């Protein structure tokens, strides 16, 4: 039954690649946001109030 190996490999391969991209994107996003946040805090910008800023979402 190895004549279907191509399909199985393709299915697992596509899934692996897609999930890897998704995970990678989420981690890159995390680093971007964290860096931006740190940079702003270094410049001395403060949120007006935590609850307010988050509440405005």
């Amino acid at each position: 039954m190895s004549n279907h190996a191509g399909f199985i490999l393709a299915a697992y391969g596509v899934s692996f690649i897609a999930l890897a991209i998704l995970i990678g994107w989420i981690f890159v996003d995390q680093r971007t946001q964290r860096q931006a946040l740190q940079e702003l805090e270094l410049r001395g910008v403060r949120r007006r109030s935590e609850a307010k800023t988050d509440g405005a979402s």
Partner: protein
Amino acid sequence: MSETVSKTARWIDWANPTRFMTFAAAFLPWLGGLTTLVLAVGFWMSMQAPDDYQQGATVKIMFIHVPFAWLSMMCYTIMTLAALGTLVWRHPLADVSAKAAAPIGAVFTALALVTGSLWGKPMWGTWWVWDARLTSVFVLFLMYLGIIALTRAIDDPAKSAKATAILTLVGFINIPIIKFSVDWWNTLHQPASVLRMGGSTIDPSLLWPLLVMAIGFTLLFFTLHMQAMRNEIWRRRVVAMRRVAARSAERRTVQ
């Protein structure tokens, strides 16, 4: 009455974004580790699983196809609950949750479609048929993409929240309607008859790997979702702080 109010208030208080962030920071590493472990075991088990007498080795696709299909529906359900959260309780985390879930759900749905197609070609001899289940998953995929597009098109979160929530809710009505009406439509024109393995009679040697994989992918979903929610909250803080910065700077130049 007053008791329910205070109860809701307490619950909302618990789930405020700051607490969520603290909780997520502590919890995420463990969740991530567990996910890796379960997925590794599941993968090993599915490699060991015997071939099906009818479907041959292609049954291995089931171990990923079925969890993806389940997760695609679970994710939409979570988004629907979040939409209710936005519209009814106006909870600030609800919109964050919905927005973070949409891309993840879209990926899982796309993978269910792709792995299903890759299974269908050797089993049915065609990549695609317009049968009830396939079509409704495809429409689900379209709705995910539509919701993502809408959240991206309106950049003010306060405004996009409600629009997206309305769309998600209206879309949820759509899923049963489509499933139901596609049956209608299939009885009218003779559909290409579709082979389908009986869901109930799965051999334990196939069932166990499937269950472990399903749990693993569900854990993966929650890990990613929590992390994406964290990112989204950070993103909103960054935007808010940039605005504050800009405004105080403008005050300086004007005066």
